């Protein structure tokens, strides 16, 4: 199957025929008419608000200026937020790929009930974020939560930690919940990547005397590296976009310990009503996403060329 569509400029016979037929419906304008409604909607509700937000960030009491950026860049809270975002994003990314891959490797073995396990693992991915947040908040409750009773059972500790009041533990909690909700997708995608690695390669490696570990390093990993790279970027996007879980579980607290990019923008805008400062942070968020997009497209181009 053609992975890359015919490049524009390469006139295949089919294309010449297609072009001739275009006259039936009208004109060269046809494709543009098809995308126009979508273009209008994306322009009005995504692109325009980004530009509007950028403009907010420049609006200060004495007209347009870079004051918001100046105060942002010297604000220790801003740098703290960037650090929190990086810690959160990288931890989620690494954990989700590691857990996703381990599970995919386990499930790559055919066993009875694999279909069932696969279906069951879809559940965390399919549960909406709001009920996920509710469930974990209740499970973590220090007085009656079930985690507390597990801890008592396994460690004998009588006091439960205040999961959501301790900055480090709260961070650990939001990372864990975000990973828990997201990992099935990564696992299932990796599973299908694993299944597409040709058996012959394993055969050859075995004949060459490769053990399990070197088979994994020299056959499995290269075979799924493209998928892994893409999933790493998807996980990056998934975690930088995360708002609902963090907001409902910790509200960005305690003392901003879990305030990543999205909650930070939200708080500036809707708690402090500081739209212009929120706009400045949003521009940073936009830049991060734009860089991630470029990175994503580059990887994908490279993969297409390799194929």
């Amino acid at each position: 199957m053609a992975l890359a569509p015919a490049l524009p400029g390469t006139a295949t016979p089919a294309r010449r025929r297609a072009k001739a037929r275009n006259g039936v419906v009208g004109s060269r304008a046809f494709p543009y008419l098809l995308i126009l409604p979508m273009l209008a909607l994306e322009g009005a509700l995504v692109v325009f608000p980004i530009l509007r937000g950028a403009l907010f960030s420049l609006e200060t009491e004495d007209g347009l200026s870079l004051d918001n950026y100046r105060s942002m860049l010297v604000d220790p809270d801003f740098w703290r937020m960037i650090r929190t975002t990086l810690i959160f994003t990288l931890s989620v990314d690494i954990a989700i790929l590691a857990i996703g891959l381990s599970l995919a490797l386990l499930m790559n073995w055919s066993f009875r009930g694999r279909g069932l396990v696969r279906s069951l693992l879809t559940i965390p991915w399919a549960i909406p974020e709001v009920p996920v947040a509710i469930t974990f908040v209740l499970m973590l409750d220090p007085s009656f939560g079930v985690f507390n009773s597990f801890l008592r059972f396994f460690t004998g500790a009588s006091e439960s930690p205040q999961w959501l009041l301790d900055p480090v533990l709260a961070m650990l909690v939001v990372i864990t919940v975000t990973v828990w909700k997201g990992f099935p997708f990564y696992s299932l995608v990796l599973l299908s990547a694993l299944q597409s690695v040709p058996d012959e390669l394993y055969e050859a490696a075995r004949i060459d005397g490769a053990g399990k570990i070197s088979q994994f390093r020299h056959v499995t990993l290269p075979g799924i590296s493209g998928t892994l790279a893409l999933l790493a970027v998807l996980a990056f996007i998934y975690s930088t976009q995360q708002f609902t879980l963090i907001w409902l579980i910790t509200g960005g607290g305690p003392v901003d310990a879990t305030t990543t990019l999205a909650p930070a923008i939200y708080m500036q805008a809707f708690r402090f009503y500081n739209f212009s400062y929120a706009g400045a942070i949003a521009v940073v968020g936009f830049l991060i996403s734009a860089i991630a997009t470029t990175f994503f497209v580059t990887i994908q181009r490279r993969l297409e060329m390799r194929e």
Partner: protein
Amino acid sequence: MSHASLANSPSRPWRFQAEPLLRGLAILVVSTVMLFPVYWMLLSSLRPSSDSLSFPPPLLPHGIDVSAYVQLFTDKPIAHWLMLSTLVASLTVVATLILVIPAAYALSRLYWAGRSAFGLLLLFTQMMPAAVVVAPILMLYRSLGWTDNLWALALLHTAFVVPLCAWVLKSSFDAVPKEIVEAALIDGCDRWKVLWLILLPLTRPGLVAVSVIAFFASWNEYLFASTLITKNDLYTASLGLATLMTQLDTPLFVLMAAGVTFSVLPVFFYMAIQRHLLRGLTAGAVKG
């Protein structure tokens, strides 16, 4: 593949003893840990109210009690919330299909200047965190008088799910063999007929996947709903549920029952079409 394993199995009999057991055990342990929160959610919602605050909480049900669900539907306006969520999500699906079908057609089957730029724009909007635009959107909606308007909320949900859906549908259009389309063109179909008579009937699973993605993206969405909807009687389910969470008077087992009720539909649908959905999503991501 089958040849290889047939040829192989007699020489490696040990594989069928220790390893499967260990793997089976590992899978069992991992699945149990991973699914425990789901079990706990379900269990807590079915526990008799007298049980719900006892500590340590019992790990097995002492009998099933659906009173939480009865209380949920009699005391809380959850039926109303679910109905509004269904309405908004259905509007989102309709709007998404209307926008996505022609666009995916243009992306997949037509050649035009600016196609890759449009593709990039889609990728780019797909990656934008909603939080980046939420404040300007609120300003825009206020000036248009569109706050507290479920139609306008659905439109916003559409704008945020359409890029992904366009990719997914494009990849199913791409999978229709060129020859079929060419044959139809030779037989005198015009461009619209190719779409209606050939592409759409052949890509029904893709259309289902796109509808499911759009429906549940809207059903689950919380950030925009919470900023744009202020009237209690316009609350969608995610919004209503989040307010139940912060109200101290909501009994825990009722809260859990609400969570379960809200999750049943997406879980059912995602499980039913997970294979297809994954294929579409990864095709959209990988071939992006």
